[in-house]
């Protein structure tokens, strides 16, 4: 099972393998005596001389020994390999120190690939090419090409690590017939933490023959310390068998890697593969490759930063353009964001966007279904506004992984339910194998790139490309601009509708002989104008029509509908055909001129001479008739709400107000309270009307006091009595 292999790999003592690769020999010697303390078992073969019990002075020619001593006096990290030939065979001698010992590594010159002087003469040109690109893609592309030209590997890739150490192939140069690996991802477990730690300090690793047999160090423990020799800094260090298995599964016969380090942190790797037998670039060529890696490392930061800056500037510019478009058409901000050549979806890289303004939702690109968007956005807003792993972070959205693993949401205004949102798909869907997986030349073993990709896919399942800081900032800035535009417009609307509402209320109750009146209007505390209206219309024959109505909805549009209905009903009542005929006419008017609107109204036409009342009710709450200390709901004379049906003939109820009787009309704001069933509210009104004695205005005030309606809706009450 993969996990076992990986667990073994993670536990592997990679710094102290107790063995070296066979393409060279290792001698650990004392300083300054240069006595051989530890030697690889192949030392005699490589050096062409017995090493046990000897010193380097015995093995090297006097001139070579002098150069060695000169190198030891300086900084070993800067020392060039020494070219020596102890047994008549040319060797490169590499120096490092470990555990108080000098580690000498001897690598035959013969058999190593040599890029030769031609390449090295091209170095200035190569450096210029490396520093020219302004994008990361450009820089890593040049790096892969040049490292391959230098070292002759079949494939050279540049890996980049993400924040969780998953790797992605961001650049590649390869032999033409090879399957491309560009864009492949690898899970963090492919390169264990201890290996990454080693890579951050040790810039280059080489395995010239991935099928090698390790050569043990003798003795295995350093005499005097009892510990194995630490080979972290040794180029011949034998690598983990698990790593060799991994290479074998990929068909890799030789490999090399160069670290890319950005300001002290391992940023990525240049990974080199051969597929056609052993391959060993010379020590000089390796040094040059490492030099390219180090140079590219220095350029990473500025290149990434420059690209980021360009990107951020572009996002900010588009934000400004969108804000300007909204500014030009402040009454239709959604159109400015959705219908223009530049839309809100263009603001930043995303697959879909949602705009909700004034309760209307607009969708662009690939988004969750319309009926899910509001819930997703609300949840993400509660969780801070941005997520790159929606389905992992928040419950209830498992079905939205594909289109909305990443969600960036910003509220527009406050508490209006308006928002902007962007959506990014699940990351694996952005990635594809470059070649046909069925004709792959890659073995599918326990550890293989395909298995790795599958494992990586699991680790990133449900995640999207993270939202960048400047993207979030631009989204917030746009929402801020929109909020201001919407607020300014809402303030204007509130002013307008309040002014309109004032025109709907009567400055003074009309004086009608034989009628006592009381009225009360209390606006909603929610600071929005409701749709209530009342009216008292004296008719030519001496009768008085009392109207109480309520238009569904709030705000400017409801206020303007209210004004129209009030005047239309007045006109209809003045035709003196009775309340039912007037409501039928009003219903017809809504159907013809205000489709989609709905209102309720009750009209009581009172004859002071006789006390007769003719009442018609279009979907409104029943009037209350109080007589002799008993209240009664007037439940007849009812028909449907205004605006529901094209043509309605309303019935009428007839009753008589005796002296001392009261008739009370009211809007739903008086009785509607969440958590209290409507029948109980009606019952409370009926009781309150019966209980309060006095003039109609006292009754009206007493009922409002008794019901103590919640402030969320406007409250209108009209009472009348016969005098």
């Amino acid at each position, binding site marked *: 099972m993969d996990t076992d292999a990986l667990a073994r790999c993670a536990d592997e003592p990679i710094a102290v393998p107790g063995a070296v690769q066979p393409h060279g020999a290792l001698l650990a010697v004392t300083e300054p005596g240069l006595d051989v303390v530890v030697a690889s078992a192949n030392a005699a073969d490589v050096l062409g001389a017995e090493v046990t019990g000897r010193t380097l002075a015995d093995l090297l020619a006097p001139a070579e020994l002098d150069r060695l001593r000169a190198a030891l006096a300086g900084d070993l990290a800067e020392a060039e390999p020494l070219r020596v030939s102890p047994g008549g065979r040319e060797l490169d001698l590499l120096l490092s120190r470990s555990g108080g010992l000098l580690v000498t590594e001897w690598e035959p010159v013969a058999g190593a690939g040599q890029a030769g002087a031609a390449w090295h003469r091209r170095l200035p040109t190569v450096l210029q090419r490396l520093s020219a690109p302004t994008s990361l893609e450009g820089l890593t592309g040049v790096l892969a090409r040049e490292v391959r030209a230098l070292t002759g590997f079949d494939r050279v890739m540049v890996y980049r690590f993400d924040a969780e150490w998953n790797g992605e192939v961001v650049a590649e140069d390869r032999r033409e017939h090879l399957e491309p690996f560009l864009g492949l991802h690898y899970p963090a477990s492919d390169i264990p933490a201890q290996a990454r730690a080693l890579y951050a300090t040790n810039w280059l690793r080489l395995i010239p023959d991935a099928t090698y047999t390790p050569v043990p160090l003798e003795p295995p423990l350093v005499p005097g310390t009892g510990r194995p020799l630490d080979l972290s800094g040794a180029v011949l260090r034998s690598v983990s068998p698990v790593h060799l298995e991994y290479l074998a599964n990929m068909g890799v016969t030789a490999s090399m890697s160069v670290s890319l380090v950005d300001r002290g942190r391992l940023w990525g790797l240049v990974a080199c593969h051969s597929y056609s037998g052993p391959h060993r670039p010379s020590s000089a060529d390796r040094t040059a490759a490492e030099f390219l890696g180090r140079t590219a490392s220095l350029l990473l930061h500025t290149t990434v930063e420059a690209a980021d800056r360009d990107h951020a500037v572009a996002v900010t510019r588009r934000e400004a353009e969108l804000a300007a478009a909204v500014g030009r058409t402040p009454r239709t901000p959604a159109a400015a964001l959705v219908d223009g050549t530049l839309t809100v979806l263009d603001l930043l890289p995303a697959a879909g966007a949602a705009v909700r303004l004034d309760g209307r939702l607009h969708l662009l690109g690939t988004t969750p279904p*319309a009926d899910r968007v509001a819930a997703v956005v609300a949840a993400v807003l509660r969780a801070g506004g941005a997520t790159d792993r929606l389905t992992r972070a928040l419950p209830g959205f498992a079905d939205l992984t594909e289109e909305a693993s990443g969600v960036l949401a910003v509220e527009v205004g406050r508490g209006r339910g308006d928002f902007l949102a962007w959506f990014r798909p699940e990351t694996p869907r952005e990635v594809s194998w470059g070649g046909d997986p069925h004709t792959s030349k890659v073995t599918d073993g326990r550890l293989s790139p395909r298995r790795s990709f599958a494992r990586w896919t699991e680790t990133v399942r449900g995640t999207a490309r993270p939202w960048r800081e400047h993207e979030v900032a631009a989204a917030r800035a746009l929402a801020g601009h929109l909020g201001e535009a919407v607020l300014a417009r809402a303030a204007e609307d509130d002013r307008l509708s309040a002014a309109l509402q004032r025109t709907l209320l009567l400055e003074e109750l009309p004086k009608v002989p034989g009628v006592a009146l009381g009225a009360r209007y209390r606006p909603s505390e929610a600071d929005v104008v409701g749709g209530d209206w009342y009216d008292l219309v004296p008719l030519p024959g001496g009768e008085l029509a009392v109207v109480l109505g309520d238009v569904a909805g709030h705000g400017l549009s409801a206020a303007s509908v209210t004004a129209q209905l009030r005047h239309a009903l007045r006109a209809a009542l003045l035709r003196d055909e009775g309340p039912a005929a007037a409501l039928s006419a009003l219903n017809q008017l809504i159907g013809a001129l205000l489709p*989609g609107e709905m209102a309720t109204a009750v009209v009581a036409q009172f004859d002071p001479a006789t006390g007769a009342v003719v009442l018609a009710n279009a979907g409104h709450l029943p009037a209350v008739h109080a007589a002799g200390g008993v209240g009664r709901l007037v439940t007849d004379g009812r028909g449907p709400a205004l605006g529901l049906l094209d043509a309605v003939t309303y019935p009428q109820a007839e009753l008589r107000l005796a002296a001392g009787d009261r008739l009370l009309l009211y809007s739903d704001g008086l009785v509607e309270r969440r958590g209290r069933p409507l029948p109980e509210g009606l019952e409370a009104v009926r009781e309150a009307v019966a209980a309060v004695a006095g003039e109609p205005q006292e009754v009206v005030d007493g009922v409002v006091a008794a019901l103590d309606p919640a402030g969320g809706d406007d409250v209108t009450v009209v009472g009348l009595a016969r005098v």
Partner: protein
Amino acid sequence: MQFAVDRTAVHGRPALRVRGELDVATVARLAECVEAELSAAPRGLVVDLTDTAFMDSSGARQLARTAKRAAETGTALQVVCPRSNSPVRLVIDLLELDRLVPVVETAALTDGEVGS
């Protein structure tokens, strides 16, 4: 109860189950869902108010608008609101919404439909 509109199916017809308080603050959500359904001009659509705790006039107006839109798309609309849900059913009765759209106790088969 948190407001939500769940999309389900009843006898093979799309159904929107409205939970929580349907009022001026939430009605746009229902409007969006209705529009999403009706844009496909289905043969039938059920709006289920069984679990709707409260409905104000904005909510009622949305039902009326839905009924008119459904007529345009040739969709047989049915509103489910059992008598046991009196807070909502009373509003429907007061407004006589049932004269515009069939209001039923439970989702029933409509003409020509075969149960699933």
